[in-house]
């Protein structure tokens, strides 16, 4: 009753069956798709993981994280260094990358989350730039040269499954957070932080914790992405375009919803992939157009529009029922 009406609809077969079919297709995909399509799906899953982890913090708290890519990059470097310097097994290296990213996020959140609105966004953007400059000049991380993941680790099928698990885990974590006490605190903070605090909500705690969880999954996705791409250097690991893409995807699908980022990433990455093959960079113009259209026509994204349609439908059927009773 209190959980935003989410759980009830999630139990319906009409909701569960498409998910099971999608999951089965994705699990079986490497067995029957071409390597090109598998690679497409790998990056699609990466964008879903990234959009979903971005959504986990920004969608639920309303704080726009313009430095999001820093968690992707630190996760990527964390994985690479654990693999090459510490000789950790690949899956452990991935988790270490995620954890380093989470610890970093919680550490920066303490000063950064004292800021609100545009100030927070700009602080995070500057942070990502600063980390880029540091990595670009830091011998410990091979400065501007970066690293190449040795060929013995290359295994596209394993990489695909790793990314699939990360995308699923990130989506699951959004579901769990939405329906937990943390979710309730975040909803209150997003709608009126002062009021939330005046009612006993420790907003700093919940915001930092959520940024940490968001960074953990972004770091995991970053690590898995670098494992697949096999090259990491500062300009690509801390590329602001990644942040902008993720913002577009989440916005198109709908901030703060469970399925929005999945839908947004699906649409935009498909557009990018097919246009990118024939007209490189054209997709950026299309992205821009889609974002402007989204902001103007449906600020709550595709999920917001479908929710409103469903509400309208429910009201209409209620009215019909009333008329029938009369």
């Amino acid at each position, binding site marked *: 009753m*209190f959980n935003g009406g989410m759980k009830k609809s999630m139990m319906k077969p009409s909701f569960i069956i498409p998910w099971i079919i999608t999951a089965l297709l994705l699990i079986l995909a490497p067995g029957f798709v071409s390597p090109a399509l598998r690679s497409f799906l790998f990056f699609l899953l990466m964008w879903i993981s990234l959009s979903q982890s971005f959504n986990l913090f920004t969608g639920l708290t309303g704080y726009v994280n313009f430095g999001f890519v820093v968690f992707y990059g630190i996760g990527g470097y964390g994985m690479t260094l654990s693999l090459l310097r510490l000789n950790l097994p690949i899956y452990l290296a991935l988790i270490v990358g995620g954890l380093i990213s989470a610890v970093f996020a919680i550490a920066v959140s303490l000063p950064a989350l004292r800021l609100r609105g545009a100030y927070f966004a700009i602080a995070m953007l500057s942070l990502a730039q600063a980390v880029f400059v540091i990595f670009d000049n830091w011998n410990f991380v091979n400065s501007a040269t970066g690293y190449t993941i040795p060929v013995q680790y290359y295994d596209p099928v394993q990489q695909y499954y790793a990314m699939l698990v990360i995308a699923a885990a990130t989506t699951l974590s959004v579901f769990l957070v939405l329906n937990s006490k943390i979710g*309730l605190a975040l*909803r209150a903070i997003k*709608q009126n932080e002062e*009021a939330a*605090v*005046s009612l*006993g909500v420790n907003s700093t705690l919940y915001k930092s914790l959520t940024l940490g969880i968001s960074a953990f999954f972004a770091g995991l996705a970053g690590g898995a992405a670098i494992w697949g791409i096999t090259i990491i250097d500062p300009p690509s690991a801390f590329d602001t375009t990644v942040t902008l893409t993720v913002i577009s995807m989440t916005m198109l699908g709908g901030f703060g919803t469970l399925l929005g980022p999945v839908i947004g990433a699906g649409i935009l990455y498909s557009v990018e992939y097919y246009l990118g093959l024939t007209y490189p960079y054209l997709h950026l113009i299309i992205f821009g157009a889609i974002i402007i259209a989204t902001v103007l026509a449906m600020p709550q994204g595709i999920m917001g529009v479908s929710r409103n349609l469903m509400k309208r439908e429910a009201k209409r059927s209620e009215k019909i029922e009333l008329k029938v009773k009369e």
Partner: protein
Amino acid sequence: MNIIDVVSVRKVFSGLVALDGVSFQLNRNEVLGLIGPNGAGKTTLFNIIAGFMKPTSGKVIFEGKEITGKPSNRICRMGIARTFQIPRPFGDMTVLENIRVAREFSHHDRSGASSIDTQTILGMTGLADRMNVEAKKLTVSEKKRLEVARALATSPKVLLLDEIAAGLTPKEGEWAVNLMKKLPEMFGISVIWVEHVMRLLMRGVQRVIVLDHGVKIAEGKPEEIVNDERVQQAYLGKKAEGQV
């Protein structure tokens, strides 16, 4: 016995003195009125007691413990709840969900805090038949009452009410007076009530303190305050020289 001691609290905003050494006590189970012209420092005083601001100097003591400068969420959990002059509802949540937030996050630091059940709160604030309505769809009067309902759901020992009757019809205002009778008697809640509607306030409180330009200029029973010359001056201006 007093539950809150405010000791020479001073607050300066970049040169402007908002509060200049204000001291007073709130007794247990008392309803204390806090009045003063606009800009007298009433809301600033609330912000300081509730932990939304740190005083430049001075102390706030709650049940014998100093709480000056503690974070506001912590102060709420210790037992001081406030309402906002301009209502701040969680607009996309229903009335019940708004109350649920208050309930969920306010009970950690006190064992055996007597909590007022939700039905009673909804009844007292007249929101029972609106409980499943999204807060943004409420009327101004209902939003003001939702502020009170949420504050009550934190099971406070002290309630700071900031203009809950402003802009309400006379009939709605009566609700506020009745509430002031119930809170101490039925729930053992002490109240500081800021209100501009004197007609209501004077009937709801046992004692009044008056602030003007950040200074406490009077303190006493409602009937004493109404006849106090300094209070009249603060509200109506000084009498001209020689006039009788």
